[in-house]
């Protein structure tokens, strides 16, 4: 509050509001498993959504509750298999992994984000990836618990502010928020931890596009658009409160996480004002 000195430079630099250079976009890990699964993952989510749709319409609360662990599992495995955990420089990575299992895993391959580490033998890579997975389970669990503790209440509050009923349908609201949180926040927390700069960018929708951020943003936008059919008088059972929002979030997540990896969008940021756009152009020129 009192320190605006850091933010207000006398000369205006057209940089993002973050005080230090912001974190780079997150890449999917280079291993083939990661690459394949990163494509399979959105499809898997959509398949889950599609197969459970009827049950969801039938009894939303029950279905949401029973699907939640599965969703969490899918998201965790996605994070573990495909994403570098927060603060993943090789050293922290190995130190995190070594107490977990010290016998077989050698130190050298544990750089997960290294594009440079692709030449290892197949077998080694295999064991290494298993080791990495094991070492990533801790941050994954952490991120999952943070998701439930922090992101779910925030999203539930947002749902209510957007007009979700406050006096009724509380279970639906909370469960819907939990699903959205697991969809969007797990990977974000896993990949970025509690890096303040990153989260400031998240609140400002100013992250560069990557699989993680694209998925989160897509889930939010999808949920927003999902609210549109609710008031229509089609008298369909699926128009009940959380269903369309959740389906929108799932579709949005899948689309967002896939599209934001494409070269067209990757690394781009959402621009708010023409001024920002102009500044950016100036900078690139």
């Amino acid at each position, binding site marked *: *509050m009192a320190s605006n000195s850091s933010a207000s430079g006398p000369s205006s630099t057209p940089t993002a*509001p973050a005080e230090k250079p912001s974190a780079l976009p997150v890449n999917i890990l280079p291993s083939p498993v990661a690459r394949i699964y990163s494509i399979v993952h959105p499809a898997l989510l959509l398949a889950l959504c599609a197969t459970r749709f009827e049950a969801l319409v039938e009894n939303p609360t029950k279905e949401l509750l029973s699907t939640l662990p599965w969703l969490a599992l899918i998201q965790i495995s996605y994070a573990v298999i495909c994403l570098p955990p927060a603060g993943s420089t090789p050293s922290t990575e190995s130190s995190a992994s070594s107490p977990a299992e010290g016998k077989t895993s050698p130190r050298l391959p544990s750089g997960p984000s290294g594009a440079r580490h692709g030449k290892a033998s197949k077998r080694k890579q295999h064991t290494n990836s298993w080791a990495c997975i094991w070492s990533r389970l801790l941050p994954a669990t952490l991120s999952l618990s943070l998701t439930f503790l922090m992101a779910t209440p925030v999203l539930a509050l947002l749902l209510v502010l957007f007009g979700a009923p406050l006096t009724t349908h509380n279970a639906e609201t909370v469960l819907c928020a939990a699903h959205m949180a697991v969809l969007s926040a797990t990977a974000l927390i896993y990949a970025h931890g509690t890096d303040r700069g990153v989260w400031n960018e998240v609140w400002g929708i100013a992250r560069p596009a990557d699989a993680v951020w694209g998925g989160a943003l897509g889930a939010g936008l999808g949920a927003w658009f999902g609210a549109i059919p609710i008031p229509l008088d089609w008298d369909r059972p699926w128009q009940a409160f959380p269903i369309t929002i959740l389906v929108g979030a799932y579709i949005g997540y899948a689309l967002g996480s896939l599209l934001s990896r494409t070269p067209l969008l990757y690394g781009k940021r959402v621009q*708010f004002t023409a001024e920002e756009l102009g500044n950016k152009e100036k900078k690139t020129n």
Partner: protein
Amino acid sequence: MCLFFGTRQLDNGSRSTDEHRKGLDLRNYTSALNPPPIPFPLHFEWTLPDPVLSAQSVLALAPASLPSNTIFGHRVHPSRTPLASSPWALSHNTRPRPGAPFSPNLRRSNAPFTVEMVANPASGAAGTGSKPNASKHGLSASGPRSPAAQSRRKQTGVLDQKALALEDEFKTKHLGVLGVLAWIMLLHVAGIYLFTKGFLLTRMVLENKSSCEVLPFEEVLAQPHSTALGIRQEKGCWHEKTFDKAIVIIIDALRYDFTVPFASKDESETAHLFHDNIPVLYETAFQNPANAFLLPFIADPPTTTLQRLKGLTTGTLPTFIDAGSNFAGTAIDEDNLVAQLHHAGKSLVHLGDDTWHSLFPGYFNENLTHAYDSFNVWDLHTVDNGVTEHLFPLLHPENSTKWDVIFGHYLGVDHAGHRYGPNHAAMASKLQEMDRVIRRIIAALDDKTLLVVMGDHGMDAKGDHGGESDDEVEAALWMYSKRGIFGRTSQDTVLPPKFAHDRFVPQIDLVPTLSLLLGMPIPFNNLGSPIEEAFSGAGGKNWANLATVNRLTSAQVKRYQHQYGIARGAGDDEESMLLYSAAEQEWKSASKSFSSKSSAARASNELYRKHQRHTLDVCRGLWARFDVPSMIQGVVILFAGIVLLVIYARGLKMDRTQLTPRLLSFAGTGAGVGAVSGSVLALVGLTEMTIIDSAVLLAAAGSIVGALPAVVTKPANLTVPLPNGMWGWLAFFFTVSQSVGFASNSYTIWEDEILLFFLTTFGVCAGISSMRQKQTTDRVLGVYHSVLFVILGRIASFSRLCREEQMPFCRSTYYASSTSSISAPWQLAIPFLVTLFLPSVVRSFYAGSKSYEGAAALWIGFAFRLGLFITSLFWMLEGADDGEWLPLSKETLKSVRVFLAQLVLALAFAAGTGAYLYSKPCVSINVTKPTEDPIAPPAPIIAGQQQGPRTTVTILGFGNVYGTRFFFLVINFALAIILMQKPMGQGAIALLLCQILSLLEILDTNALTMSNSSIGPVILGVLGSFYFFKTGHQATLSSIQWETAFIPLSTIKYPWSPLLVALNTFGAQILAAIAVPLTVLWKRPLQTHDRVPASEPSKNPATRLLSDVVQAAGTHILYLATINLATTMWAGHLRRHLMLYRIFNPRFMMGSAVLAVVDAVLMIVAVGGVRWSTLSVGEVFGW
């Protein structure tokens, strides 16, 4: 409170004595500077950027006069100020803002503006001598005796002249801008008029009258009737009369379910207070079916009393065009039952609702008739007591020769519904009173007299009516006679139906029934059918009689249809002709067989009946015929108006005020030429339109054609009016998506929820955008106010009044219950909470820019609070009246309430407007001399500057001069609007005011104030629409709170009553519209002509301000005009939609009314008010 609202108030403890705060005009203020008096004109301060001046006038920094140099989020940084290069940054240090063209660091200067000057004549003179152009700025601190003073005075004169010229220019341009807004409004009115003319249905009124001597059959038309007229009139004209006399009692809003024993539709439903309180009707029909029958009596919408009386006496269908004339009835010139009775020489008596008198002037026996004002819905008893008082003497046998037909119109049930809603003890007792009245009439009735009791319409769940929901159209009809002549044709129909949708009769059926029972001819325009029960005889087998009356009716219907076809220039409907001839065929065979019970009579009866109903359907279709060309003309005018507005508000880079003369003269010329040529065309007969229509059309078209070249002048001045940046697109998206949504009845029904969704979306976007701000203060304040904005909106959303179509997914909270229209006792606390908190909240926003100075303390802290307190008392007394908590008579309470309400209105409008015109800006100017303030740290001094005794002039509230001054106007209207709302609505309006303030802070922290973004005015439009719903309204006619006209008045007074209802209905939109100029005025940096940016040196800053204001106003109108065009187009397009009258038509009418009201308010109040706020700022700070 202050901390809660994110701004911290500045303790002004270090300011010197009060005498320094008196004057605000610095010109007069000079006398307070002593010794010696420095005759400087005000302009001097604004010339400070001149480097010369910094040598002799030292700008002291905040620490000298502030107890703390940290204002919430605005720390003053002396060390970082580029002192030499920009003295302005020095005195108003907030943050340097790149990109803004002019004095960006002034934008939110919470720090007081401080000037410290050398007041020592000697040293000052020394300084001045070496600076030749110092005197130009009138800054010389030398004594008045020096020769420089002469030239300075001259210069001062020149500057004054310049200021006067600028002021005059502003005033002229301001008038011009008002002219432009007036032109836009007229354009809208013309478009709406043309569309409405074609859209709201009209029906040709035939002048033909039925007469006693001419039967409706074609074959008897020519031949004169054999029997003498006198005999016929005695025995009955077309049909033998059954009764000599009749008493027709209308219980306004007698809904069918009031009259039958409670029958639950589903198991959970239990009897309400309005059930089972008027059992006499059912009882008699149940016990003696031959003496009485009770039937559901379905009204044709609109269910307003005037329309219903027309239908009940003429037997025709209402068309929508008459719906609005409920407040001013006009005489019926069609053939009708009352006129027929009058012409037959009957003595007619009317008691009760005075609507009858405007409809049937001169028809009633003046000695016996007593009419009462019908619109005082707060008064449940005057009308009813009057009717009862004058009715029963007439029933005395000695008076029986004085009258033939009595029309008694009770209003108590309707008023109880309007005031309390049906589920209230007052309704129960009113219905019980009606029960007693009817029993007394029965007791006094003789054999020759027919007694009819009916409702003219029903009421909805909260006691209002006007629309076409089931509850509103389902009235009850009961006929009673001591002779026992009523019959039932089937055993199934002996009992009155349990629910209104079983075996109902249309209300127009009363007309032929009553006519034939009383031996009158059926009115010429009648489309109703005789009611079976009245003609089938006590045994229910008198088919011959039934066939006879139906034949008469059918013949009359056919005759009418034929005449109408001729008048319209169209042929007869084939199917109804076929039906009629088939019926005639059967009739002839029946008359041959000489048997009253023959199946032929029965069959012909059926066919006649079919013919009548078929014709009714044909006519319903016929009168749902729209004048499509006129509708298209209206839509085109409205569309062209929007195109012009898009260019004017969003597509111009230039100063809009420069356009005014050209625009107005071109548009005026075009309109004149159009009006003249339109009139000529119509006079010559080249068009089929009336003179008025063609003149209006061509005038509007001409002004559009004329205005286009005036607006589109040079390409250099134009930009593509596409939104740029996220905010522009967001505003565009809100407007367009809402407009598209009106094509769907669901989105129209759920508009309130959708608006909440939009507002929350805006709040979230504002929070996101605030997170991107570079300055921590902007970020924190922006996020804070975004969160506040969203939460306030969500809190307001708990105030709901559900429309019928929202059920069962909606729970009304606006009133005590969903079947009531009074506030719950706990809701009476809301006005007091508003009194307690709202002024403090407003104050905290003022204090945020240290503007709680000058008139603000009196205005906000005292007058506003006082007004709110009186309002709370008013509603407390209202609650006491409703709940009968006080041992005072109703009259006393009413007169006290009226006095209180008038007091508040006087405070808001009379005193408020007066004060607004003459008030000074919310700044405080304070002068300290160093001797009074010895502990002040030494001011930063420019090297080489000589020291001397200095006088520090501190101006508090400098950063928001325009905004805080203009906001007084918003406060005045907020007070009046709050008075006019029910307690729940008062809370909503208070939240609206807070949200507007939060919005202004959001706009400021996101740098949207000076960039003329479209988002501010559009969000204000969304806010206005949202709070329309939150103040207990819906886009339905029945949700209009007519009773609020009686808040400050005890009787209807034109034009005040409609204005008061408008203030209640459109209060939210009016308040939002008045706040529109604030989107460019809030925390706008002060600009005077000598401080304009170098890029436009010749510009008058006041006209730039004016241009910005009119751009914001144009954008706001654009939002509403787009909504209006969309609702208009959809209503026109969906004119055959099942839901037209329930959903699309009311929404179209609301959109048009809102547009017209907001156009007028923006022109007269909002933009009009900018004149005085700007003049007042200019008076103190120069031009």
